[in-house]
């Protein structure tokens, strides 16, 4: 019985390994997300507004 409880409570080592795995997987996820210029949850980042060149005044004053 004591051996069994020691075994159960030794779960921390398995947890530690699982945690290592989750860290690694989420880092790889983060790398791919960054590569595609997206957030951690793969939502696209708001693109900066590009001013529409078609609507620019033809004469923009002395240059």
């Amino acid at each position, binding site marked *: 019985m004591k051996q069994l409880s020691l075994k159960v409570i030794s779960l921390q080592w398995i947890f530690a390994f699982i945690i290592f795995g989750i860290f690694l997987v989420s880092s790889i996820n*983060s790398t791919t997300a960054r590569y595609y210029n997206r957030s*951690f949850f793969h939502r696209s980042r708001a693109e900066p507004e590009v001013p529409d060149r078609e609507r620019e005044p033809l004469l923009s004053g002395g240059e």
Partner: protein
Amino acid sequence: MLYRIILLVSQLGYLRQLWSPNAERLLAAANVAPYYVLNNIFVLAFTQLWIHSKFWGAEIIDIANLLSQGTLYWKYPGLPTAIHFPAVAGPYAWTISALFWNGAVAVPGGDNLSKRVVANIFIWVYFFIGQGHIVQRNDHQFGYAISLLSLCKYTYSNVTRLLTTHASTQLLL
């Protein structure tokens, strides 16, 4: 140990940034420099206390280091990789894992049941802190650092545990 070697090699790259011809990079590297020096002093003090088995002293030094590293980490987002990993994310990840690692050693009483229960809780605290940083800042460099640290500490402690518990392998020690 493996982690230390990787970190030291990458820090050579960081030091090179201090002579960068790019003014923006130079400014970023110089902003981080005081924290980098402070971190080296803290790590030196930590190691000295550790090898003399003064674990609570080492824990206090580590908390001080954590405060300085945490400030640095949240103060300068979007640093280039050559600065962020060696001088910010790498040491910060090391400080966080050392906090829990050293804390487990500092608590007296060897390997008993109550300590194991507490360890089961704290390993998840460690997880949430690490995962929080990865998600919040989408920081893969910090992520790789902390996952390598977790694997190193896991392997190290299991190897020492097996060597000390199995009579047949005790001759090796």
